[in-house]
């Protein structure tokens, strides 16, 4: 792989919570020392349980959330230190698609206004240019041009999600963060959007960070996958690495827990006990050890480093070599 489009080193986002005049409050390490890179035209899948910091990571790449530390490079340029003016311009390079198609469109604006907002902001084109551009965008996402005059509430969830995608595309970005774009949609509609994203990616050579819960969708759509747990990367590798040769107990548990539409019932599943620990007071050492069936005392000692076990396949588990996790 040549120079990656997006290159993230040691990124952290910490939120102070409960801070008042008399109270220091506590810190939630929503993202803690995450590194990743996405090549041109590559789709990186990001999975993890709720609260594992997926959204925060995605937003911090675009500086919609200010990172606490680390570096984000887009096309080799550092994003975390950009001036506000530069950042505004840089935003046409990177965009985001949201989960909730109902909350992500301004109900007071027409679809045309929503799609041409970026042009407005960057003072691009005449009125007619903008109209054309909106029509093109709509066509790209499979909606008729007449949609421009309508308001978001006149569309169904799937259609709205298309509008959200069109908005992201309106600035011709090279990189898109897709934050669970299909989770809120009905199954029968999900397929439409998954197909659309797949097509767009091929057509426009987009780089995508695809955040999702649904492992089958991730497998279907992504090239590489990153597994997060409580703000840290547990494992990262190609789709085949992750789905067929998982090295981290958490990855394996996630795979086992994903409901499969199949008549074959598995018996050798790893089932986790308990829930996510409190993010304000995380366990020492390996953050996953409290739910891990393979945890030993050594796991509590130090945070396991993310080490390459095979080319491009990194795992953060000190027992990765000893335990056999390959699915039966």
């Amino acid at each position, binding site marked *: 792989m040549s120079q990656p489009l997006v290159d993230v080193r040691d990124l952290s986002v910490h939120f102070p919570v409960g801070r*008042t005049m*008399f109270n220091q409050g506590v810190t939630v390490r929503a993202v803690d020392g995450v590194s990743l890179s996405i090549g041109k035209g590559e789709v990186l899948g990001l999975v993890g349980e709720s609260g594992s910091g997926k959204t925060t990571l995605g937003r911090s790449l675009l500086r919609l959330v200010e990172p606490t530390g680390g570096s984000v490079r887009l096309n080799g340029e550092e994003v975390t230190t950009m001036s506000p003016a530069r950042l505004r311009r840089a935003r046409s390079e990177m965009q985001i698609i949201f989960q909730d198609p109902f909350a992500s469109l301004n109900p007071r604006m027409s679809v045309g206004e929503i799609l041409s907002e970026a042009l407005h902001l960057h003072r691009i084109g005449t009125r007619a240019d903008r109209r054309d551009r909106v029509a093109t965008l709509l066509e790209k996402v499979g909606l008729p041009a007449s949609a421009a005059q309508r308001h978001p509430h006149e569309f169904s969830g799937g259609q709205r999600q298309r509008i959200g995608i069109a908005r992201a595309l309106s600035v011709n970005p090279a990189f898109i963060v897709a934050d669970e774009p299909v989770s809120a949609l009905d199954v029968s509609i999900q397929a439409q959007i998954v197909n659309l994203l797949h097509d767009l990616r091929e057509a426009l050579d987009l780089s995508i960070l695809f955040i999702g819960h649904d492992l089958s969708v991730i497998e279907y759509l992504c090239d590489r996958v990153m597994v997060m747990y409580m703000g840290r990367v547990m494992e990262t590798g190609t789709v085949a690495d992750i789905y067929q040769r998982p090295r981290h107990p958490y990855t394996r548990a996630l795979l086992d827990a994903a409901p499969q539409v199949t008549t074959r019932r598995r018996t050798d599943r790893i089932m986790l006990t308990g829930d996510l620990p409190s993010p304000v007071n995380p366990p020492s050492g390996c953050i996953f050890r409290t739910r891990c069936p393979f945890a030993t005392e050594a796991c509590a000692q130090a945070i396991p480093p993310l080490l390459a076990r095979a080319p491009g396949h990194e795992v953060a588990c000190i027992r990765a070599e000893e335990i056999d996790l390959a699915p039966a």
Partner: protein
Amino acid sequence: MSFSFLIRRILGAIPLLFGISLVLFTIIHLAPGGPLDVYADNPSVSPEALEQIREAFGLDRPVPVQYVLWLRSMLVGDWGLSIRTGRPVLDEILTRLGPTMQLGGISMLLSFLVAVPLGIISAARRGSRTDSTVTLAAFAGISLPVFWSALLLQLVFSVWLGWLPSAGMKSIGDGSVSDRLLHLILPVTVLSLATIASWSRYIRSGMVDVLSQDYIRTAYAKGRREGSVILRHALRNAMIPAVTVIAIDFVTIISGAVITETVFAWPGIGRLFVESMNGRDYPMLMGLMMMGSVGVVAANIIADIVYATLDPRIRHG
């Protein structure tokens, strides 16, 4: 309920009170005219006498100095002497606080006892005729000017019917409980009307919100009947948002009693306020306004405590 929660809440109120005192002091001292004009009323007060008084009250100092002096003595409980009566402000306020609290407290209690059932009925039967009637009455209550209803009630019950004393707190030489209660009826009614109306609306809307919650459906699913669902599951949660309003309204009742107290010759804070205003009695006005503000702040703290008692989410982190 944690003790530190209380402490923190009270500590948080200190800068607030400080800000309030600054605002009040500024307003009063920005105003044209001074407090000593009250003495100029009489053609025979000499300039020397005025000067003596000025010094006695520290009015010859610069305003910021006066503020600091005032604040310092305020903190040690010395609220100064009333310019109008020459008596300690705090004493004066405390003597007037009793009747006001009595009037306000009873009105509160009455309002609460009437408003809660009204709100519940109207929420549980929303859309029904009962609901419309209660709603209509509530809005009428909110929209009725206090002084107007006071005048009309006096006219009807004291003059025409002669059933009730029209004003005052007790008959001279009587002061028995029944006599006091008789005197309370009209002012309490006037004062409660608006609060009953507005509280019943709050309770209703809180109740409507709560009744659409999932846990209400859960309660039904467990086999509870409607009455018991409302009393055991809905009411407490519906009261939570109403608590703040009720606490704040208590202070509003008291400070809003200006009119009621004037019309019904009730010897309370509100009237003292009007008197002091006419007399430009700075120390008294400051004292009263501070007292009122402390009341609001205290009511807020109490509301928070009640809130926390009702809502374990606040109580236990």
